[in-house]
């Protein structure tokens, strides 16, 4: 009687791992293709699907691989170094400022009493449902009349007050900053800003970490923003520069793949490094109930 279910479950787990492995291959092959293509010449790309075959170690002609594409990327011809610096600057500045602005407002709306608190909460919820595509054209016109086009201010300032950030920090404060501790500090004579920086912010650390990563990634991958706001090539971040490279060198596949690899590696490293913060923050900020 027992043998049938066990037999079935063995077959079941064989099927399970087979499916999981097939999915893994589908996920990994494009990434592998990306990395391998980045180290090939144009000729090498056309001749070999993945690694060039030859008589080297594992039957691969390692000598045919080249870092030429990376040299081209960083040479003045394309100048990806500048774009890399721009991306790092834009993403870290936006992430830091957005986190600070949202933490201040989110904390205040949860832990402080003030007139108009209900209206503020209503405003945040209403802001969450504004569809971004609606604002694309009017924002461009408005930035034009503010004379902020082709400036980093025109790109950063609109990005550092996202309503959902205030919402997340409000939830995190309600969940992990006990009112009694804030009250006690107030009785001890601490100022409101002192309480925020010395007591609340450390307690909100997981959300701070998660929100920093979320905004950093969102800015890094933002394409439509810089594409519309910035005009000078030397100001553009990686997302736009890679797109322009694709338009100008559309059949230069090795070059394109190398550029994509350079663009992805910093974020992937950051994410793997901070993965724990990311997941802890998301779960602590989740609405309970």
């Amino acid at each position, binding site marked *: 009687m027992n043998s049938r279910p066990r037999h079935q479950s063995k077959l079941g787990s064989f099927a399970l791992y087979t499916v999981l492995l097939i999915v893994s291959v589908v*996920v990994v092959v494009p990434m592998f293709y990306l990395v391998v293509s980045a180290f090939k010449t144009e000729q090498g790309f056309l001749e070999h699907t993945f690694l060039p075959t030859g008589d080297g170690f594992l039957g691969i002609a390692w000598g045919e691989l080249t870092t030429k594409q990376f040299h081209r990327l960083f040479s003045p011809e394309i100048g990806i170094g500048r774009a890399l610096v721009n991306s790092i600057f834009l993403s870290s500045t936006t992430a830091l400022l957005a986190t600070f602005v949202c933490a201040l407002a989110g904390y205040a709306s949860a832990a402080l009493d*003030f007139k108009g608190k209900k209206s503020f909460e209503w405003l945040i919820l209403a802001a969450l449902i504004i569809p971004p595509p609606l604002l694309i054209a009017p924002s461009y016109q408005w930035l034009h009349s503010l004379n902020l086009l082709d400036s980093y201010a025109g790109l950063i300032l609109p990005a550092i007050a996202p309503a959902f950030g205030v919402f997340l920090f409000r939830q995190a404060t309600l969940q992990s900053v006990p009112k009694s501790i804030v009250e006690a500090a107030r009785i001890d004579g601490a100022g409101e800003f002192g309480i925020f920086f010395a007591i609340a912010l450390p307690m909100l650390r997981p959300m701070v970490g998660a929100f920093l990563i979320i905004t950093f990634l969102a800015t890094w991958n933002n394409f439509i923003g810089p594409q519309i706001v910035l005009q000078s090539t030397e100001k553009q971040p990686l997302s736009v520069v*890679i797109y322009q490279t694709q338009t100008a060198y559309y059949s230069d596949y090795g070059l394109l793949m190398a550029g994509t690899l350079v663009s992805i590696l910093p974020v992937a490293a950051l994410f793997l490094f901070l993965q724990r913060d990311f997941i802890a923050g998301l779960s602590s900020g989740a609405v309970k109930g």
Partner: protein
Amino acid sequence: MSTGSRVKPYLFLAPFLILFVVFTVVPLFQAVPLATHHTFGPDASTYVGFEKFAQAFSDARFWKALRNTLVFTAGSVFIQLPIALGLALMLNRKRVMGRGVFRLLFFSPQLVGLVFVAVLASVMFQKQKGLVNTAIAGGADMLRSIPLINANAWLPTTSELLNTPWLESLAMRTLIISALWMYAGFNMIYFLAALQNVPSELEEAAMIDGAGPVRRFFAVVLPSIRPVAVFVVLLSIIGSIQVFELAYIMLPEGVGMQDSGLTLVTYLFKNGFEIGDLGYATAIGWLIAVILSATAITQRLVNRQEAHA
């Protein structure tokens, strides 16, 4: 209470409120007059009333964009999400070896980022030398070498397969496949989190009562993860209706051949920033907003109806 503590909360809110009003509220209000103007660049404009909306309704390209966007959305909801749920169910089984590794692996395409997935896909889906066509042609050759099945009779020729126009004429299929690669693992994470909350006693009880896996899924698992599933479906629809970068970067001219991959936001972008008619772009923006609101309202109504039933 001192005046200080009455003013201070507003100092906490001030940076957010000022930026929010200047860069979100003002453009939102400007979206009303802007949609009633014909513009050429940001400076030249004439009042045209509701003509821009009428223009959209009689514009074949707008309807094509709407249709393509809905096809993409359907692909996300009916192909991608079931796969994401399937992956979550597999990883949620007890004693799966390497669960953490698989979870990270399936999630990892998300780290590549939309723009870079689009560039990678534009290379992989090329005719002739792209990986996808090379792999399909290779697979077809293997079938041809099998005797008896007579593959040559029903398979397209190798050169036809190598010239499959994924980016040109089959744009919607290509977009759905690329989005599937990028987002299935991401949505799997939501489903996995929801599956943690399925009461195991309930599932065991159902098992003892002799319910098979399919029955257990519909009677126990699905009702328990329903709130999260509804949320993921809604997010997926809202995100899909706004699809832009993937199509714009991946497809020739951003739209494919004969608009085969033209989406609503691509059309908005092209009108606003390539043709320079910000008024028409804003009118399209309003129409997208209407579609998004309709989605959210429908979801609410369905939810309420089911709560009453």
